[in-house]
């Protein structure tokens, strides 16, 4: 059963893409030696790349482009927008929502450790005065981290809380790099605020 979207077919893992003698396995496909057949290993669109003229092997390369591959993936060094989900004594966890200017297609978790919140006096950082659950923060990815989460950092002036809701429920206005104020009640709450600007 072949489903077509436009002029490319959608394939599922295990579907036969061609014989090993006729096609070469590219990304998202693999060659099974038992019966010399190329199968798909991802769900996505099948695309055939014609062989380059100077290579000796004249077989076309068949690839499967997964739908998740269309979404951006955080890389070390890029700036991401994340929503803080949990604040603990030594770190805060956040859900990464955008990489650069593009929204992600799948869930990525990030962790902001106590020593990565700001650049000065890193051992005196109080996580509760820097972030609260629900804040939107701009952070940079330091590393791929462990299996559970990326490691994020807000240790620059332009990074930190971009938007936050006060305890009364209204969006707060930044008044300094450590404080934000609620416009309806006038209450001031501490946050690590990102410098506004481009």
């Amino acid at each position, binding site marked *: 059963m072949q489903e077509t979207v436009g002029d490319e077919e959608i394939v599922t893992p295990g579907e036969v893409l061609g014989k090993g003698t006729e096609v070469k396995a590219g990304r998202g496909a693999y060659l099974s030696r038992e019966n010399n057949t190329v199968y798909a290993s991802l769900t996505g669109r099948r695309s055939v790349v014609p062989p380059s003229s100077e290579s000796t092997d004249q077989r076309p390369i068949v690839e499967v482009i997964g739908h998740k591959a269309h979404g951006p993936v955080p890389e070390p060094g890029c700036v991401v927008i994340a929503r803080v989900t*949990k*604040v*603990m*004594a030594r770190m805060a966890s956040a859900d990464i929502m955008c990489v650069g200017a593009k929204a992600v297609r799948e869930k990525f978790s990030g962790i902001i450790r106590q020593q990565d919140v700001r650049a000065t006096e890193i051992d005196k950082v109080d*996580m*509760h005065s820097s972030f*609260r*659950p629900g804040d939107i923060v701009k952070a940079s990815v330091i590393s791929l981290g462990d299996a559970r989460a990326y490691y994020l950092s807000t240790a620059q002036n332009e990074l930190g809380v971009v938007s936050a809701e006060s*305890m009364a429920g209204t969006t707060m206005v930044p008044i300094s790099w450590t404080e934000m104020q609620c416009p309806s*009640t006038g209450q001031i709450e501490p946050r690590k605020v990102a410098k506004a600007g481009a």
Partner: protein
Amino acid sequence: MEASPVKFVDQLVVIILSPENLLFFMRICILFSLFFAIQVPGDVILDLSNMANQTLKLGGGLRQDGDSICVMKAGKLRFMKPNKYWVESSQKRYVPSAGDNVLGVVVDTKPENFLVDIKGPALAFLPVLSFEGGTRRNIPKFEVGTLLYVRVVNANTGMNPELTCMDANGKAAEYGVLKDGYMFESSTGLSRMLLSSPPHPVLEGLGKKLSFEIAVGINGRFWVNASQSSTVILVGNAIQKSESLSLVQQKIYLEKLLKSIQ
């Protein structure tokens, strides 16, 4: 002679019912009923448009809604001079706040913390090193279900509360494991009454006749220990029963109880 009471009453009524005095009289009546009646959520207790240039300190259970101060929690309104107002209520659930001494039950052990249940919305963390002379080498081993008397260090909203078994100077004080005895559940109001400064009548009366030790946690738990378990049961039940009795009834109950144990 019989005309003068009527005239006096007439004059009194005239004084009270004149417009300026009426407002004053009404306000006195309201204040009088405010501090003796139980407030329910939604009651407006103060109208700020009449009071200019005053700073009020609002404690728990009160909220400013534009120009009026409304009650958020059911309970008794309390006032402390010069300008503090708060609502005192009694619940079975506890809202953790920094500085409270509570009774917690260990539910899990992690490499860095013990997870302790203190009857709050979230489990509290007790760092393994927060004991007097605590180092990585002598971490106490608590089984699941151990009862501890601990102090809340901080209880920020959205985070798990943090506990410690040391006082502010780093000494063990009275904190730590409570061995033997039995723990009873109560409400937060009863815990506050047991800890209040003119001692609780039932507690004082029982203390004169029986010998037992008691630890009260402000989170609605108290622990009693005595040489005989019949004493523990007696004290625990007496305290739990006394919550719903007025002062006079408590004295009567206490007398009956003390007579029956002899």
